[in-house]
């Protein structure tokens, strides 16, 4: 380390930061996709809940359960 010049050290530090930046950028892309998918799932679950709470469907689901018994 002691033999490295200031400029060489700067170069190594920058390279190391760039490597980290590259890897994190990859993660960021996956994370972006993940949050969009999570939103899709949350939205679909909310819609599903709405359907379940809709009275005629609620009644039909109950009837289906009874039939199985």
């Amino acid at each position, binding site marked *: 380390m002691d033999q490295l010049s200031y400029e060489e050290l*700067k170069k190594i*530090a*920058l390279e190391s*930061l*760039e490597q*980290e*930046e*590259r890897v*994190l*950028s990859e*993660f*960021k*892309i*996956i*994370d*972006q*996709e*993940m*949050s*969009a998918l*999570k*939103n899709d799932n*949350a*939205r679909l679950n909310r819609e599903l809940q709405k359907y379940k709470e809709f009275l005629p469907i609620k009644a039909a689901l109950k009837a289906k359960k009874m039939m199985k018994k």
Partner: protein
Amino acid sequence: MAELNIRKRLQEIEEQKRAITLGKKTAGRPESHELPLSEGISVIIPVHRGEEYIERLIGSLEAQTLEREQFEVIIIFNGEYVRTEEIFNSLETKKQYRVIYTEQGVSRARNAGIDNASYSNIAFLDSDDTISADYLEKSLEACEPFTILLNRLYDVKGQKPDGGANHINRELTGRDTYPESYYSVVKNLSLNGGKVLPTHLLKKTKFDETLNNGEDVLLYMQLISEHKPIVKVNPDEAVYYRHLVDNSLSRTKSNYEFSITDRIAVLGRLQDILKVEDDEEVRTLIIDRMRAQAGFMNRYLKEHMEDYALVAGEVAHYTDEYFPYARMNEDLAKRLYISYCFPPYSDTSGIVMAKRIVERGEPCDVIHNNMYDVRSMDLTLERLAGPFIASRREINTTSSFTNSKYISLFVERAMEKLDIYRYREIYSRALWPASHVLAYEIFKESRNIRWIAEFSDPLYRDIKNNIRQAGFYTKKDIKEIKRHTASNYQKYLDGNLFNMAEVIPFLFAEELVFTNELQLESMIERFDEDFKEMVRQKSVIDRHPTLAPEYYNYQKNYVALDKDKINIGYFGNFYETRNAEEIMNIARIIKAESLDVKIHVFTNSTRQVKSQIFSNGLKDIVEVNPYLRYFEFLSASKEFDYLMLSDARTGGYKRRNPYLPSKFSDYLGSGTKIWVQYEPGSTLASICSEKSDSIICNPLNDHGAIKENLKRITQKEENPV
């Protein structure tokens, strides 16, 4: 993933890099000094016009049961207010009122109110709305120092309150006092009505004064992103009455400014928050609000498709973070693209299809196969056609170029998923024959549909001109196809997948697209003159599209060039008809002539090329790197002095070279000079015959011509530093 704080760390890295480069320390944030606030509520009311409602509003405030000393009303007159102020001054009031004046603008007015607030909590009230007499008292009882308090919101139409039967209030019904997630009360976190917030948070995070509307959505998303406050539903019923009037925004007739320009402005700001937000829960919330904004755009576009190109142009490059393109395009597609392989799977043919979508610039749906077993995934590729896609359906089948079982399964599942009658047009593109097989199946069902078929490469014959064979169509299928085929063309029908993947589109597609003239002629040379003419009549030659310069800046590249040398980039894979030996030959000349030239090869076959380099003692001249992903490649392509492109070698196999490398179109958009190694008679050769300052050419392996071109390349005047 969120625990990594990806975006925060990326920002730190950016700052650290800047500091290292400039040799400076980064400045810390100045600390703010706040004045102490009294326990109570500041009610902030911006008033512009409002002469009709001021009396009702003051009546509602005068009726408050909360002690006079525990709240203040800050009225901010802005815009037109003279008449309202006169009425206000004529009213008898007992509570604490403070009046301030600002220029017109609801956000500016509210921010002035926040600046002047002297109580620990803030309630916003619109001048045409009212609150129940116990609203402030019950709110203050429930207020907490780090909590957004949600109160009941009733809509009032005419004189009748709806008793809370509206979608905003319903979100609070039966909800725990402390909701488990922001998302569960997302609609309440999008408007000011019914909220009481800690003043110290609002003094740090204020309304965006540049927005015409949507400022409330943005404020709440910013508050949540920056402070992650607790949300609490008031267990007591304190009611905010929202009086719906005819000119309220939700009833505003859709116009371009409100539905498009203003929405894009809000979406841009929300996207800015996403760029620094790592918390998944908050991201989900913001994405939901972005989708809601895009819903306005979608409604407008459904009525004004003539404005689509304008809108798409405005939002095409908002791709750095999530943008709700699919919501914006929902149900707008009249054209279906069928591409067995399509992004995010990395595949040249799929990328070209995505570029076609960009080139066309219209909303569309896409159907493709799950190619995970044979292709790597590059999620950034979704940025390419994503802005135009309404619905992208992925079919889960084992991917195959030839297997009839898997291709049939793909077609069957695709047909189950598609509502084919909603489309006016289908566009299939094949390198992978399954694309045209599915397109024909759709065409069979809906013969009025317009079918455009594009060929990436010849299918029936491979690069060495061998006939490809794979059984696919049964005798029954062929009989059925014959029923719709002119008798003189029936002889070309058989069960071979690769024959039929050419013949069926030739017969039934309304338009055929080839990337070059030689491809067309090469593919039809096996037919009789009559058939050839029929194909030519409906054929279009359309080279691979070149993307706009913006796409070349989508991603950073980390390519390290040698500043003291001429740097030549070669991007591509090697195989029998396009091998690395050509690069080695050039490198040998560079070595023999002691030229200051370096060739940077980007390929999937790094080991094979490295072995050749070391065996030939060319390691100082040729550098081998792994293949770059598409947007990094585009970005890197701008950095070189020259980009090298080679024809596939077809001499000895084919009468004509039907291949035009699609890289050529990508190179053209980079602005970098191109060095072409062409096969005589090829499409690249004819491009070379057109004089151009940005392209230099020589025949493949022509030693003398290569030497000449290297001389040109190294001449200083051509490459001023």
